[in-house]
């Protein structure tokens, strides 16, 4: 039987449609699940938390949504080894829920995506992210090449990874930093990082590798029409660019 993916819609989520479509275009059997239908979630095999401003980003982005009933099911599923992907606001929620990096207790975040630096404003800018772990380290990245560069859009006000120094070292050394910001030629430095994120981190993964939180949006650069200048003009409606990341996720779901 085909594995089913739930795309969660919290009050304030705004990227559910494109996330759903790209998952489907990448072969996923994906469906929207709204907050008033939370009890449907256990029947799904994987969860995707899309971007937006769940619960208005009150207190800190993702902080309230981490306590939504839907997250009870996601936390349960993550424990069972289901794949969980959070993009942008979804990533923030996964950190606030303590699922990523997952080194502490549930709903006791040890690290957070916080207000951008150097200026605390929302920014929308095209970025490249580079795979910073062995692809086999996570079933979500297993379909990617080592050091693979993926195009995406950073579009957030709170994307700067912050944690205490010791914890940051731990995240770095234990392979929790799944993607880092990079220049288009693959070079990594602080100037490629749009928000002063610690460790240039664009994405974190938990120890088990089944839960991944990525701040920039690969799905917004996920079809050829999103980047008409970067590739040939063939198949303008075809998934390409950031779709490679979602293909890898869907393959990971099917392999479970």
């Amino acid at each position, binding site marked *: 039987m085909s594995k089913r993916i739930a795309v969660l819609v919290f009050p304030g989520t705004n990227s559910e449609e494109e996330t759903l479509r790209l998952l489907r275009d990448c072969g996923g059997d994906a469906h929207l699940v709204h907050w008033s239908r939370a009890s449907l979630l256990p029947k799904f095999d994987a969860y995707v938390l899309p971007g937006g401003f769940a619960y208005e980003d009150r207190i800190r982005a993702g902080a309230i949504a981490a306590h939504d009933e839907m997250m009870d099911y996601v936390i349960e599923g993550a424990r069972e080894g289901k794949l969980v992907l959070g993009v942008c606001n979804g990533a923030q929620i996964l950190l606030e829920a303590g699922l990523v990096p997952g080194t502490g207790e549930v709903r006791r975040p040890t690290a957070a995506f916080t207000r951008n630096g150097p200026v605390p404003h929302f920014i929308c800018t095209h970025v490249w992210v580079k795979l910073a772990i062995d692809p086999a380290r996570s079933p979500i990245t297993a379909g990617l090449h080592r050091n693979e560069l993926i195009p995406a859009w950073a579009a957030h006000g709170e994307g700067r990874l912050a944690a205490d120094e010791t914890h940051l070292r731990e995240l770095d050394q234990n392979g929790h930093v799944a993607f880092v910001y990079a220049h288009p*030629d693959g070079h990594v430095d602080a100037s490629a990082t749009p928000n002063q994120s610690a460790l240039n981190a664009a994405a974190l993964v938990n120890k088990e590798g089944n839960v991944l939180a990525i701040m920039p949006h690969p799905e917004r650069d996920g079809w050829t029409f999103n980047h*008409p200048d970067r590739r040939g003009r063939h198949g303008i409606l075809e998934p390409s660019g950031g779709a490679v990341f979602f293909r890898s996720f869907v393959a990971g779901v099917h392999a479970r």
Partner: protein
Amino acid sequence: MLRPRPVRLLAELDTSGVALRSDELARIERTLGRAPSVVELHAFDAQWSEHCSYKSSRHHLKNLPTTGPRVVLGPAEDSGILHLGEHEGERYGIVIAHESHNHPSQVVPFEGAATGIGGIVRDVVCMGAEVIAVADPLRFGLVDDAQSHQRYVAQTAVDGISAYGNAIGVPNIAGDVYFDERFDDNCLVNVVAMGVVKESEIIHSYAPQGAAGWDIILVGKATDPSGFGGASFSSLTLDAADEESNKGAVQVPDPFLKNVLMRASYAVFGYLRQHNITAGFKDLGAGGIMGCSAEITSAGGYGADIDLDKVNVAIDSLKPEVIAIGETQERLIWVVPPAVTPQILRIYNDDFTLPQIAFNARAVVIGTVTQEKRYVLHYRGETVMNVDIDFLTGSIRDELPYEEIDVAREIVDEAPLVTGVQMDELLERVLSHRDVASREPLYRRYDSVVRGATVLPRGAGDAGVLAPVFGAPLGVALSVAGNPRYGRLNARAAGEHAVYEAVRKSVAVGARPIGLTDCLNFGNPRNPAHLGQFVASIEGLARAAGAFGTPFVSGNVSLYNESAGGNAVPASPIIACVGALTDVSTVVSTSLKQAGSVLYFIGTPQSALGGSVVIDVLGRHDPRLPAIDYDTVVPQHDMLLAAASANVLRAMHSIGNGGLLVALCEMAFPTLRRGIKPIGVQVDDPWQWTHGSVGDIEAFFGESGGFIVEVAAEDVEAFEGIADDIEGVHEIGVTIDQAVLAVDDEAFDLHRLRDMWMKPLREVYP
């Protein structure tokens, strides 16, 4: 003979800031045969304001072209609709609306600008459309002083637009900004929203046939005292002394609720379509519940009977006139058959849990559509309003006197401008001019790519481009224009050029311009000189729109943009243009693609430098605005669209503020990024294409329009074949693999030029 006015009414007239004039009040009393109730007084005050009634502008607006083969719905309802194209037998329409939120943004810029986005989005949603984009033409005062109110307005209005648009998940794909001291006391915050709808599934803003006895459902935020008197507030001039009381007339935005409200409404659309039910849907704007319910029912030929006690309110003890007329945000009204009502309430209140999203937000039945054409409001068992609905909403008209504008006929020296300023210094000063400098520090605060349908986001092309129908190759472009430097000199030409520039920007991405919207921002119409500018601008708009075959399908008038001191904004006709691409793979962006390409200038250099940036930089004066020769320009546009369709244009950029060299720099700057190869430009001596018809300054910095295109060496033959017989196609240089702008035998470092271009707005928007 009427009886004397009741004391309560007199007191209300005295203290509540009613803008109704005494002759208008007398007319109401004559028609009603009695003094109006307090609720009725406020109702007429709102409905008969310029904002709602267009009383002094509508008869002038009739001169704009509004019909054409692409027009699905002209200016009649909350938005206009243009035919985009077909896919798999289905016709798709682009819904577009354009309005201003100038007064509120001057007083409370964050909330004022945010509610501007909120309001215009509702105008598009209520046509049954999915909202796919917004745009924000902005005009601010001078912001050089970091402590000034002007700087505060410029920063905070942008924050408001960003906060609202980002949260509801609608990409901001087009916009512009100008800074001018004539906007010091009156900023202009114009907003455009665009949606997509199947033409067979349009929902109208009127009660459908057979709607007598149907339910009137109010949906959204709980009614509160915010925004009371908003319609009449925007129809008065701003007075600094009234600033505190004006603040109460500004509404409070709630993008979080709106996000959910939009999604819930899309679910209702789905339900209605599935069950083949026709309904009416309309946004609450000026005049609140009263304005919306009166207009949606009277437009269908009905009346309405509404019980204000049923309205979900945020606090008890609101006066009936506040419930009826206050402009609380995030509300809409449905007119539906009673059998459908429970399902609609369930979608909003249970599936999308509105009452849990914001305090007492919900969908609730507040009244009934009536056969009798009266507008009746009940409150606590009393009838507080009972008037002929057509008298309330029908057209009133003010024939105000206006002056023919007098364009100064100064004797002009036609000789080329001679300056003692070196080319490098002039180029740097033009690039760092406030109207030329990079807008990126501002627009990077806007989400330009949410919804995943963006083809060209802000900054990538002269127009924003989307692939609006998932799974279809159709593309839609959105551009905006309106140059206040022109508005200062000549209101008629400013109108013409606003259309020309908006259309040019659409062509520059390879999209055929198919229709326009306008927002006409002017001073007090009771000043005959200001009304004269308004009338003249409309002549200019009509002339250009006729020539380009781009009708107006919606628009807005914002008058009274002047302070108590009589400082009016420059004539500001602001235009948005919708462009269509049959195949979005033929879209063209601004950035140069490769070294070794040939660069062409398409256009005609003119000696007129009036309104140009270079004239401002030099502190000179020229009263002449560039002329638009439609017989030359229209074929140029057709040729460029054909060349784009044939995929022979690698890059294209229209020439605007700053002129030709600025356009070339803007094509090269995006290539100066780490990890990709820089591309520079070698430009010939301008004599090669002007043959001495104008001087170097005019050739390089004149703003007579036109385009630059990049054509790869292997496509030159194909391009020249398409461009054969077209007037004004000039080869002007080549692209090179160094980061320099080489002009004849001088070379300028592009990195340095880019830094000067980036700096000015970074200070305002760090």
